[in-house]
């Protein structure tokens, strides 16, 4: 059973003055130890329009399985997802989690370049003197998705730990596609997403700040138009001089 926690159901009051503008259907799904969590509609968040295409989602939610989550995300259907997600395992035993964020995009991208990055913190929230966050079965903690398919991943075989009461450790999860030349990505028709997959010790907290950006690759025609316009502008400047 998949449970979809719609982040955004909500901020109706926040955006009622712009009733004609609908926020993107930015969602996340939570799976705990292989089982979909709760079933609660996530009506605890808010959404605000930040610019013509950018939306800011934030909120928090504690489910009946002893998992407490909060999120703060800026998204653009153009598209990018950027923000911070935190989770506390309030149970007495370690648990594995899979968190899927999904953002519908518009327009579709025939050929993309992609970039992403993540970093995070792990905290001994219950003061037990230790905390750990590891990859589940050696997989990646961060996976970038396009149309729900793998694009890139970060933090494979992660093993982060804290060894002091109420201690905190920061970790850099790395990046992809931020250098030159741009990293080629797939055609993207409907969604981009970020998946977090990890195992967290009892009573402890983890937070991830991450980014996933997809840009369309200019078509040859568009490139030619761009170069032509530059040449025209240059000639214009010469004549003026």
């Amino acid at each position, binding site marked *: 059973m998949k449970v979809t926690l719609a982040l955004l159901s909500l901020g109706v009051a926040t955006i009622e003055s712009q009733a004609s503008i609908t926020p993107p259907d930015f969602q996340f799904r939570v799976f705990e130890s292989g089982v979909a969590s709760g079933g609660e509609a996530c009506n605890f968040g*808010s959404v*605000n329009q*930040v610019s013509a295409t950018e939306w*800011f989602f*934030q909120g*928090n939610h*504690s489910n009946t399985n002893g998992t*407490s*989550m*909060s999120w*703060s995300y*800026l998204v653009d259907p153009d598209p*990018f997802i*950027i*923000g*911070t997600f*935190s989770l*506390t395992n*309030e149970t007495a035993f370690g648990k594995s989690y899979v968190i899927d964020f999904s953002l519908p995009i518009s327009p579709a991208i025939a050929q993309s370049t992609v*970039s992403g*990055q*993540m*970093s*995070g*913190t792990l*905290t*001994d*929230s*219950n*003061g037990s003197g230790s905390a750990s966050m590891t990859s589940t079965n050696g997989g990646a903690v961060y996976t970038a998705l396009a149309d729900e398919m793998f694009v890139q991943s970060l933090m494979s075989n992660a093993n982060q730990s804290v060894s*002091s*009461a*109420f*201690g*905190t*450790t*920061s*970790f*850099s999860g790395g*990046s992809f596609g*931020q250098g030159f030349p741009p990293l080629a990505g797939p055609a993207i028709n409907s969604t981009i997403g970020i998946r977090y997959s990890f195992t967290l010790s009892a009573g402890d*907290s983890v*937070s991830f*700040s*991450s*980014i996933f*950006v997809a840009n369309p690759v200019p078509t040859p025609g568009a490139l030619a138009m761009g170069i032509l316009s530059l040449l025209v502008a240059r000639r214009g400047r010469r004549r003026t001089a």
Partner: protein
Amino acid sequence: MKNKNNFIFITGIACLISSAASAGFNSSGALFSVTSSVGSGTLVNVPTQITPSAWSNTGSWTGTNASVTWANDIQGWNSTTSAGFTNGNIVIRNNTSAAQDFAVTVAMLGTATGPLVAAGSVGGQYVNGSASLGSLTSTGALWSAGIDGTTVNTQLNNALFFAQPFQVSSLGSFSFSNLAIGNSVTDRASIRFSLRLSAGGEASFTSAFSFQAVPGPASLALIGFLPIVRSRRRR
């Protein structure tokens, strides 16, 4: 003779326990405050009791195109010997088109009898969600821990972090321990964040501040005395 030694041993343990108990940790809840150059905002905090001696706080401050959210702010105390809190995860977001200042204070209200030893830690990330070079800075300490309004430790002094457009910068993690606090806590222990975020910036932090009782001279004397008593019993 054996009975006499047993009496001394049991009395010593009882004195040790009562000495620790005199440290007396009590907590009366949490207090959150946010000030920002953005202007006034609406603050909401929801406390939840998760164990008989621990509370979790979740809430937010919402201003015009700016926000501060916190979750899993857990404040707890272990019997009578230690107390501490973590701010959970605090996220500060500037959605305006200009740099903005933020000051966020998280306080654990309560008392604790000194002397104490304190420990703390802080770590975080900075996300630049704008198309321009972004920065996170502080004048003085970005993070400070205080007792009854007096700062006892600072971290990330004169912080200066940059991030390219749509990139994340790890702020690292910093900690301290065995910090001697001579006085008692009479009102509150607190964590304070003070920073400036460029347009479109987001900073998130996890930090903690904890302290425990220092055994008094009488307790130390008893601790030293116990091996002697045991040694006599063995003889």
